[in-house]
């Protein structure tokens, strides 16, 4: 039954066109340095790229369609699998969108815990970015170092929610759990060591001749190009646009903490690398402030809105009405009001937006996921021409794309 000759081998990787001596190179979708399932069709003139066609969709799993067939709370774990490097930021974006739709205010302790999750996720994501990009460029040591630190962060997250990668640690209306006993002490220990670690990476990379040659003046994105392509996050800030949603449209407690938004006007790979490193330091700074905030918060973790949010577990177990209401919310789902909302949050990759059109039913009528990586992949169309083949890898690396997010 296995007809191995059904898929006839053909030399799809290389096509020679005799007339204009153009070579078409297929890159991916299974390529270790494509950061996922990216397929690039590169038209080459010798080693220089003249045209690039990114082909995506190899990880399209139909999440938007799934959302239309799920109750709101049911969709929360699916958002984990979008940007699976920093799952909690996706959970958070979705929870915030639904909360804005309903008009919920979240208790302060839940906000503090959410901030902690968001920033640890940002650190995780940036460490992972550093590890993989350095590995692609050949710096194996940095990969091992950065993964070491990332594992400590994952331990922390695991202490909190029990999962390493797919956290589902945020609920609509708050967070499910309070922090475990040693969480703050462990986090502080990690943060105290972080500057040293970041310095280690920078010592290895900053003045490294190969790193600089692969990074400096490679993949320059101009300001106009970045804006026109809908770039966000580090991709935008490296091109000289000072725009951080945490700062400009603050959500949660970002207006109460003090942090800087690093900006560069170079627009090349090296600038992006420096921004990632600077952002890690800023995240640590935010985390220190958030840890201090935790002390003075009340014990509530979930908002009180019986129409939409289940009562605390203890009420469900002891009070009849809470149990009934919980049962209805779990089996039928909450029914947000009729309306539309678009909420953007600053995920580690950029502007993560959720557009929800609710028709008052238990299922969203339309849910559009605005994932930053989608346009960061699209920009390769315009960015790659003019560069050489080895630059492709470093450019893909610094765009920091995650395919769960690109294809959704």
């Amino acid at each position: 039954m296995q007809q191995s000759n059904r898929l006839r081998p053909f030399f799809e990787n290389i096509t020679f066109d005799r007339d204009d001596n153009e070579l078409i190179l297929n890159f991916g979708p299974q390529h270790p340095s494509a950061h996922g399932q990216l397929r690039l069709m590169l038209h080459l003139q010798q080693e220089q790229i003249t045209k690039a066609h990114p082909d995506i969709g190899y990880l399209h799993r139909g999440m938007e369609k799934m959302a239309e067939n799920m109750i709101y709370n049911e969709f929360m774990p699916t958002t984990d699998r979008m940007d699976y490097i920093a799952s909690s930021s996706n959970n958070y974006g979705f929870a915030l969108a639904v909360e804005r739709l309903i008009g919920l205010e979240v208790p302060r302790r839940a906000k503090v815990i959410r901030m902690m999750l968001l920033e640890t996720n940002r650190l995780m994501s940036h460490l992972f970015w550093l590890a993989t990009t350095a590995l692609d460029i050949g710096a194996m040591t940095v990969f091992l170092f950065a993964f070491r630190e990332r594992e400590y962060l994952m331990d922390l997250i695991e202490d909190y929610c029990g999962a390493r990668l797919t956290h589902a640690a945020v609920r609509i209306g708050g967070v499910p759990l309070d922090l475990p006993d040693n969480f703050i002490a462990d986090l502080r220990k990690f943060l105290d060591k972080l500057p040293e670690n970041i310095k280690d990476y920078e010592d290895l990379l900053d003045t490294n001749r190969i790193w600089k040659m692969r990074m400096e003046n490679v993949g320059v994105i101009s300001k106009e190009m970045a804006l026109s392509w809908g770039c966000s996050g580090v991709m935008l800030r490296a091109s000289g646009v000072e725009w951080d949603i945490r700062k400009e449209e603050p959500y949660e407690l970002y207006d109460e903490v003090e942090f800087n938004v690093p900006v560069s006007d170079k627009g090349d790979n090296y600038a992006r690398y420096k921004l990632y490193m600077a952002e890690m330091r800023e995240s640590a700074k935010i985390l220190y402030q958030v840890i201090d905030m935790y002390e003075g918060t009340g014990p509530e973790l979930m908002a009180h809105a019986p129409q939409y949010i289940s009562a605390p577990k203890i009420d469900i177990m002891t009070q009849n009405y809470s149990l009934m209401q919980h049962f209805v919310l779990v089996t039928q789902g909450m029914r947000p009001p009729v309306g539309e909302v678009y909420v953007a949050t600053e995920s580690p990759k950029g502007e993560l937006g959720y557009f929800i059109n609710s028709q008052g039913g238990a299922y969203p009528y339309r849910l559009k996921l605005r994932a930053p990586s989608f346009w960061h992949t699209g920009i390769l169309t315009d960015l790659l021409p003019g560069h050489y083949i080895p630059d492709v890898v470093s450019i893909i690396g610094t765009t920091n794309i995650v395919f769960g997010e690109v294809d959704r």
Partner: protein
Amino acid sequence: MRAYTPKDDVQKKPYYTDRYWVAPQVAKSDVSEDEVFAADLEAIKASFEVLDAYIQVGQMVVVINATDNFGVIKMLKNEREYNQLSELSAIDWLAQEGKFEVFYQMLSMSKRKRLRIKCKIGEKESIESVEKLFRSADWSEREMYDMFGIVINNHPYMKRILMPDDWEGYPLRKTYPLQGDEFAQWYEVDKIFGKEAREIIGPENRDPARVDRYDTERFSRLGHEVPRGTDITQGEPDTLIQYQEEGGAFMIEKFDAQKTVTISDRDR
């Protein structure tokens, strides 16, 4: 008699809705409450027809005619400082009114404002591309075409983006079932093995709840693994969790001073 299921919207519905249920509305406020938005709306109204405008959850929504989309967005970009098109997609209202609703989510960084332009087009109609204004629309419009089948005029590369080129159907339409039509369900089998292999491979198991505990062909319990096809109706043994097999790896196991023969005489 079988219950009637409408074919124009096959999405999941709540199995029970109270007949007196009236869904609440998210508050819409008048545009004049916000100065910045009011000025923007005035500018749009000056040269284009505005069908509806309101502020919802802090963002202005402007409903325009579908033919004006390029003009309005061009004006917003060049004159009103809306410098990014963050999102562009459609909503399927075919079952209700036979139309798609296309929305453009825009962001002004200098004013820190977001607004949404909306317009409606019929199923067979097409809409003008805004790719010349915002490159980001290039891919969004392709995605919209891929998911809804909305054809875009003057788009440089109108092809499917997420689904394969030879895909049939538009997945995000309400008429498209979540688990795919027949073409989707057999897609990979048809493509790799050919249609004649359908019978051998069999249909997909789409029932996530179907678990056959005694099926050792496909499943084994972690910690209780047995060779394929073993009968486990009487219960399966525990698998020893260890680094090597019992008694260590073979090479070491064989080398035992008592059991080995030492050859001292070469000419033996």
